[in-house]
């Protein structure tokens, strides 16, 4: 526990009768890429703003590298931040903003920053006023990735990026982790989270629904099994963990499998199985599993 760089303990934020974040306890360990998922309004940005000391918790506490988040002058020596909707001073050019953020920030690797400017294909001579959403995001990303801060807090940082830049972003996250930086990534891009995150927290209506590694999450969820057979079809009725059985052509069957596969395998062994395919659920399916029920209800 001593090497948790971001920690929230029973963190709660209420706005009048609305509870935006409810009793959230999280530990992000040094050197991991931590995904922070949840639908709109789940409380992701509010949590991040509490970690940054920009919003005061109603109850509980948040720390950055062991320092209370409210002590921003010290806590922010350990972090760099990319906001969800980047707003910049319109009259400054990209280069001027990068300079300002480097000089006021926790320390910047200028050579790496120049490399990032190249990689993200950013024209820094232009005024921020003329930047598109994606370009403003690039400025904030370059500034954050170029710091030597131990923690990078990224709030939906790729919503305005094209696929090429999205690839650069993933590469930058991996390089940051290789250098030992911790990345806290709030995102809607589930493929991106799946590609780069070591662990994922799922937030639902301000409460923590799950924290697990992506493989663990998969294990907790339903895999899709497709079986081809000759002769009599396997009898899967009332087999533990098997659900949503459907015929797949003349001599095939498809079903959802959750939990240990042994009972299903025993049932399949009694039939003449010619092919068996197991597809693990995508993060998107897991995500929809968590929220689908909520929306249906």
């Amino acid at each position: 526990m001593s090497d948790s760089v971001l920690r929230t303990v029973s963190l709660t934020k209420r706005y009048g009768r609305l509870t935006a974040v409810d009793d959230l306890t999280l530990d992000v360990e040094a050197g991991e890429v931590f995904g922070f998922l949840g639908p709109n309004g789940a409380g992701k940005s509010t949590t991040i703003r509490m970690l940054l000391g920009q919003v005061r918790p109603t109850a509980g506490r948040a720390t950055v590298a062991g320092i209370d988040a409210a002590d921003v002058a010290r806590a922010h020596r350990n972090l760099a931040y990319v906001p969800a909707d980047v707003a910049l001073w319109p009259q400054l050019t990209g280069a001027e903003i990068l300079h300002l953020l480097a000089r006021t920030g926790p320390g910047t690797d200028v050579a790496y920053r120049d490399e990032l400017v190249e990689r993200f294909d950013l024209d820094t001579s232009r005024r921020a006023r003329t930047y598109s959403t994606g370009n403003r995001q690039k400025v904030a990303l370059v500034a954050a990735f170029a710091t030597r801060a131990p923690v990078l807090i990224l709030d939906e940082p790729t919503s305005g990026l094209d696929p090429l830049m999205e690839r650069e972003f993933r590469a930058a996250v991996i390089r940051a982790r290789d250098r030992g930086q911790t990345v806290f990534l709030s995102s809607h891009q589930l493929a991106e989270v799946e590609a780069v995150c070591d662990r994922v927290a799922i937030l639902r209506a301000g409460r923590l629904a799950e924290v697990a590694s992506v493989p663990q999450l998969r294990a907790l969820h339903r895999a899709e099994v497709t079986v081809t057979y000759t002769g009599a079809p396997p009898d899967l009725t009332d087999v533990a963990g098997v659900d949503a059985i459907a015929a797949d052509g003349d001599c095939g069957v498809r079903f959802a499998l959750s939990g240990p596969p042994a009972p299903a395998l025993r049932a399949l062994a009694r039939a003449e199985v010619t092919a068996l395919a197991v597809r693990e659920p995508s993060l998107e399916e897991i995500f929809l599993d968590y929220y689908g029920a909520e929306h249906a209800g």
Partner: protein
Amino acid sequence: MSTGTNTRDRAPGRAVTGLALRQVRRGGLIMVLFAATMPAIVVGTYGSVTADPTAMASLSALATNPAIRTLFGEPLALDTAGGFTVWRIGTVLAVALGVWSVLTVTRTTRGEEEAGRWGVLLAGLMTPRQVMIRHIAVVSGVAVAAGTAVTAVLWTAGPDRVSSIVFGAGLAGAGLFAAAVAALAAQVFPTRAPATGATIALLGVGLLMRMVGDGLPWLGWLRWLSPFGLLAVSSPYHGDHPLPLLALYGGTALIAAAAVAAAGHRDIGGGLVNPTAGRRARLRLLGSVAAFAVRRAIGPVGAWSAGIAAYFLLIGLTAASVTDFLADNTVFTDSAARAGFVGLDAVKGFTATLFTLLALPVGAFTAVRMGAFVAAEGERRLAPLAAQPVSRIRLLGADVVATTGGALLLVTVAALATWVGVTAVGGGLSLPEALYGTWNTLPIVLLSLGAATLATGWVPRLALLAGLLPATGGFLFKVIAESTDAPARVLSASPFAHLAPVPFAEADAAGSVAMTSLAVLMIMAGAVGYRLRDLRG
């Protein structure tokens, strides 16, 4: 639908007019109420003032106060309630209506377009020209309503009803002129700030031209080039000349036509003048939060300096001729002396009275700067800086210090400009005296900054308003209290009651120390609030 064709043709236009109305209605209503209430108050007090000989004496003393004369224009017909009202509040109403029209037009047209909200609007059936015309029409409607309200109040007060129409039409014309110029500026510039700044600067020049024209007879023609000058030349209750009003409305129509023509000849999101997108990086004053606050203040300080320097240079240049005139009219100076305005017949006394007015623009400057700081937070521009290892106190302190520095510079510029003007026409005021006079207003300026900072910490959306309260609010309060002959106890609520006319008199040390201490307390309380509260955005 039996009226299908008709509805389709009119619906988009109505919707856009409705949108414009929703954005304007609250401020517009306040503006019209203000325009109706001010003359009603003045007319209401006029009877009691003329009935009471001592009140009449203090009124004529007030009329001889050169600060009041310069601000309010020449008193032409103080013998009627209407003429008294025109002199008392004519300029205030015209400036208020003009400034409101400018701010509202640039906010609802260029501001909305800059924020990207017109992209959706213009994807509909309306052309940019139609949308612009409807927004301008709504603001113009408020100007006409305000002028009509003034006419209605003065009409019922009688007896010169034609004069009440002339005055109301002139006021409405000033509002329409300001709206038209703002509309044109909103086509020329691609962003709201320069459009607003250029138009306000133009109105400021217009106000200066009226003052010069009023003050120097051989430059009287200058008033024909200014909306405020034309309002003065139309002389309500003292001639009622229609020609200046025709010129004002004709000029307004031309400018409005130019704005409409320009609206069809530019890209959405762009202006007729578009700055080049790229430039070399200028890295000076980007090294720290404090330096960056200074960098952001440089432009505004330059603009406010230019306006203040122009005004006080004018004061300096005309000081000698005005004081000569006053020295020759002992009736004025005697009654002024009885009312407490002593030494108006000397340059030092004249400038001292005008220096006290300096707290108005410099106080407004501090309010506007803190308002801009709060706006940067609300529009999330502050978020990247707030995520740096910089405490909230330093973040706020940087802007408070930069604003204080800017205010010091502004009062120093005022002293220099006055001294240069006075010295150019013969002298009578030394530079240290001028500096003493302008620096003497700093306690009220600091009160403005303190109130704005206090609001920034606790109720950020009120920062600008709170900052305007001590200086602008205090001045209006003092003027109204004096007009209604309020007791000294009420009058002392205004900070201006504790401001001595320096360098003619010695500074009110106790008052200055008290106001400065209160300002420092408010700044500290504001800092505490800013440390504790959630950042917006």
